């Protein structure tokens, strides 16, 4: 009786195994790359209803972060400014620019402007802005150089690992208290700053929580 299977079929199991291995490895690789916040979140840049330009306001006009995000140091939530804050200046400056039509109509009608949320923590995470900015962690650590963004994008993954990286090495994330809102600040001397940071961690007793209860309630 003739052989049902030609000789080359001997290699089939091996090929199958190799194919499965490749498939498995690439699936794992794909998931680790594509299914993490690094990929899914970073770079997210929705179009906002009002083309607010952080670069223009911060870098060219010199506004402080807290001019608009006025309660970032008092509340868990860093507030988006009310229309009245915009109108402080824009009732005088560019008072009839069509780009600001939305702001003016909100100011007059009371309807909120629908800013698209860029940074969103999962519901079971309770992040608090105030404790970070009041203990030497700058906005730039999590939000990137917003001062240079014309349209805001998601700069850091903000995953749990991202948080913990810093909570495990607090000396890497803190800077002098007067430089927290200066997003362009870089230490003049990296080695000296590292020494300062380590001392600050000790003197301020920076012991960021790594327990679940730190962020999950």
């Amino acid at each position, binding site marked *: 009786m003739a052989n049902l299977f030609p000789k080359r079929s001997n290699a089939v199991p091996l090929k199958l195994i190799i194919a499965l291995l490749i498939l498995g490895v690439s699936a794992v690789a794909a998931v680790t790359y594509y299914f993490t916040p690094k990929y*899914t*979140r970073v770079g*997210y840049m*929705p179009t906002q209803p009002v083309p607010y330009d952080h670069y223009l306001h911060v870098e060219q006009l010199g506004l402080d972060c807290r001019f608009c995000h006025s*309660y970032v*140091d*008092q*509340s*868990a*939530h860093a*507030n*988006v*400014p*009310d*229309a*009245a*804050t915009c109108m402080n200046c824009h009732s005088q400056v560019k008072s009839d620019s069509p780009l600001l039509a939305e702001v003016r109509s*909100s*100011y007059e*009608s*009371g*309807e*909120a*402007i*629908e*800013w*698209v*949320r860029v940074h*969103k923590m999962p*519901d*079971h995470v*309770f992040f*608090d802005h*105030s*404790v970070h900015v*009041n*203990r*030497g962690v700058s906005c730039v650590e999590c939000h990137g150089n917003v001062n240079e963004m014309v349209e805001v994008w998601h700069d850091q993954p903000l995953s749990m690992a991202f948080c913990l990286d810093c909570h*495990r*090495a*607090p*000396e890497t994330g803190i800077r002098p*208290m007067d430089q927290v809102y200066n997003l362009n600040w870089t230490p003049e001397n990296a080695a000296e700053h590292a020494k300062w940071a*380590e001392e*600050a*961690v*000790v*003197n*301020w*007793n920076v*012991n960021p*929580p*790594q*327990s*679940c*209860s*730190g962020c*999950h*309630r």
Partner: protein
Amino acid sequence: MKTDLKQSPTEDNLPSGPAYWRSLDEWAEKPEFKNWLHREFPQGASESEGVNRRNFFKIMAASFAVAGLGAAGCRRPEHYILPYHKQPEGTIPGNPVFFSTSFPGAKDNLPLVVETHGHRPTHIEGNRDYAPYGGSISAFVSASILNLYDPDRMAASYRGSRRISRERVRDLINELVDTFGATGGQGLAILAEPSTSPTRARLVRQLKEKFPRMIWAEYSAVDQDNPERAAEEVFGARLRPHYSLAKAKRVLSLDADFVSSEPGSNAMARGFAQGRKVRNQADAGQMSRLYSVESNMTLTGSMADHRLRLSSSQITAFTALVAAKVIEATGGDAALARFLRDRASGLSIDQTWIDACVEDLLEHRGQSLVIAGSHLPKEAHVLSLFINRLLGAEGQTVRYLELPDHSAASITELASAIDSGRVESLVILGGNPVYNAPADLNWKQLQKQVSQVIRYGYYFDETSIDAHYSIAATHYLESWSDGRTFEGAYVPVQPMILPLFEGFQEIEILSRLADSDKHDTYDHVLETFRSEFGGSEAGFKKLLSEGFLAGSEYPPRSVEFGAGRVRSLLSRSSIAAAELNANALEVRLVPDSHSGDGSFNNNGWMQECPDPVTKLTWDNAIMISPAMAKHLGFDTKSGEFLIGGIAKTSSNFHRGSEISRVAELTIDGVTVTGPIHIQPGLADWTVVVSLGYGRRNVGRVGKGTGFDVYPLVKSDARAVRTGGRLSLTNREFKLANTQAHWSIEGRAILREGSASQHLEDSEWAQKMGMESHSPPIYGTDKDMPLHEKVLKTPRGGSAFDHPDFADPAPNVRVWNDPENRKKFIPDQQWGMSIDLNTCIGCNACVVACQSENNIPIVGKEQIMRGREMHWIRLDRYYSSGDVESNRNEIPSDPQVSLMPVGCLHCERAPCEQVCPVNATVHDSQGLNVMAYNRCVGTRYCANNCPYKVRRFNFFDYNKRSSDEFYKGPLGENLYKTEGGQLVSMQRNPNVTVRMRGVMEKCTYCVQRIQQARIAQKVKAKDSNDIHIPDGVLRVACQNACPTEAIVFGDVSNPESAVSKSKDNDRDYSLLGYLNTRPRTTYLARVRNPNPQMPDYERIRYPHTQREYKSVQPQPINGGHSAHH
């Protein structure tokens, strides 16, 4: 593994019965019960029925299909941030805003501070600045926030069943004003609920001026006016007896449940607890003593040192005997004493009880007090006023406060006016008379005789159905008003949210009726503040920020009256004790612990909050004494006793459901039908039934709950009826009862001693329990005081080194440096101390916790499966002192012990060791935390928890309504319904709302801890001042507690209140021998019996302690026998 829960580990043949029992069945040691006990979550929890391969593939295929669909839409959905257009002053997005207001009551406005998030009220707490209440509230007050978001409340006004606009309502009132303006109010009648509001009183005065012939009547379903009526008769002025329990060393309570249901109870409970604090050994000698004579088994009775069971209808006679004894002992008018004895003859009572009690009261002249229950007849109050006078209590422990002038017709007077056709238009402000007016008035028919009935109310209820117009009312959190506390301090009622629906405020309705020129309710309250309290607008702002007006209390008045007055008042009426027996029962009608007079019937939190004594939920029952049970044919002896009417041989306790026999209770031909519940501690021939159930027109929550006993209420006998007959039917009814859940069989779980014992040897509590003679647990550190043990986690020579939570995490490089390490400030370590001596079991903590921590209700059906979700439960134990007789007979006169148990945050938590996914772990502050997102729902932790404090979400209790739990995803998603969204507005945004399949438990209010920590670090900035000062951080249960029995704080700080509280010889760990080292520890209870009393020998040592000792095989280490 076999679970051996017996106290004595060696003998099986020794008496093995539990010394405490939590249900009569458990006590009977039924095999079903024992089986049940040993499985934490009994029904259908482990067995999944009907899962086979075919089903499995079907489900999996479906879920893959869904996953495929989802892949296309895996882009993150857009979320929006909606800022204000103009940010209101004083609001910081993300931070709560607190408003002061007060909870309106008939006699007492409770000052409150309400937490709001994004303008939604979310949590109610007491105003701690108001000293008499010290921030305490009741379960009802806590739960009242849920009424605000009740989807069943009236959203608009109606004419019949047709919706009408707000303008139409205003026109309607104007029409009334026009019609009756011409007649001077002839034909107009208004029936209102009593209120303490000066603004309302002022408007009513205006109204009466405008309509001099109008009838203004007031009615409250539960009448608590007798103390003031008696005072008015005696003194001829409107005076309110006010008791200062803090100053009272000896208290005799005559059927008065002053710690929980009497008006002004918050202040009384608080004062009473102050007299019971035992901080050190010497304090035990200073403890106050409470004598209680009562028919019902109340919380006050459970706190009593000597409790005498006596039917309410005999207590007036008893009071007369007490008065006679006091008169004789003080050398008073002997003729009056003889007269009183004469009138009270027929009451057979142990005279020595009265003699010894009176002697004790007199020994503490000026520091003793008699309180009579407000439901007792006026004669009892006249007598107790007189006794207090002779005891020298006036000006010391009792003051008479002058009430402002106020007059209102009674509902009986109004009824006769209606009957004689003198009422054309009837306006009903609040209340619910069709449901709860005395049955002999037949209010439903009366109301139909009136040609126009306008009802102003919060719900569309029984009264609204029979009204021509129904005007929607606002909730008090949406209204401007004001009020007085029980002592008379002026407090505001301030809105913090715009009316959610088209409701009207009561002040506005009255203002329109009185036709004053302005109708702004704020202006009205301000006007009252100006005209009656001499305030300014700036002063009003201050009032609103402080929450009460200091120095505005009712002025005390000194009084004068003599024996002659008492005699003349009593000579007209009978005070003889009623003749009672099994065929002529006394029926006590009490407000329900769940629904009050019925107004909280649609409140899920209250429905599910177990009654403090019976532990019943969702229903009321006919409570009978063991003697009555025996009479009805329940064999209460020889292990054949019953609960609910089913013999032991057939099963009558399935998990949380108590299968009860239905009985008929008949008085004067009126019959109510309800399930029986045998309640130890009742007076033999007293039957207790609670009002507020069996509503006919009620929302979805209250529908079908309980039975209505208002048909038994008569206008001249509102709270006590006699001549009742009880007969069993053959029907059965399932009651949902939590009392048998999570039973820990007996032993030294709840430790009680007596004051004299404490004076002899203050360490008695340490000598109880198995840990007292099991040295290996603490090894060489055995003698370390407990508060230190809790703090230090001593190794005791063990090879196992328990990690110190406060150490810096080993993966932080900076802190690994030994030099840096020296400067490290460890995290604060949280702990709690619960004083069983002052816990009155009022449930305020249970509901406050529910409100703070987004705890769902699960419904009666789930309760019957033992799945209630409360994070803190109140265990109630009965004890009779004799384990042997416990086994054979129901005690008719037990001692009641109460114990709140939440997660104890063990340092060596058994739950953590069995979690396969590390969902429950310890944090650096010593908290045993639950990471909900890690939890996969194995329930191992709950099985391994010796305290049974973990709660599992068997269903999406928040997302589905209780009748659709089993439909799963096919059921309606409540988050998408309007009603569900309304309820969601109450949720605390800082606490995760748990979903199905997740374990949860007390977190020590971790959200509050974190917020306090963050606030402190924000303050600290670049300093190391990161420790939260003691007293800043308070947890929800602690804030609600009227008696400050719960103390929370940093146990690593020896100066903190909690450390000081734990530094007490009475401090012990629950099941300490398991070496779980709980952070929550208890202070043992001290009872203070009087050696002169006839029952002293029986209760010289608390029953629980005697039971504990009787099951000890032999004295070990010589530690126990000394106390016998």
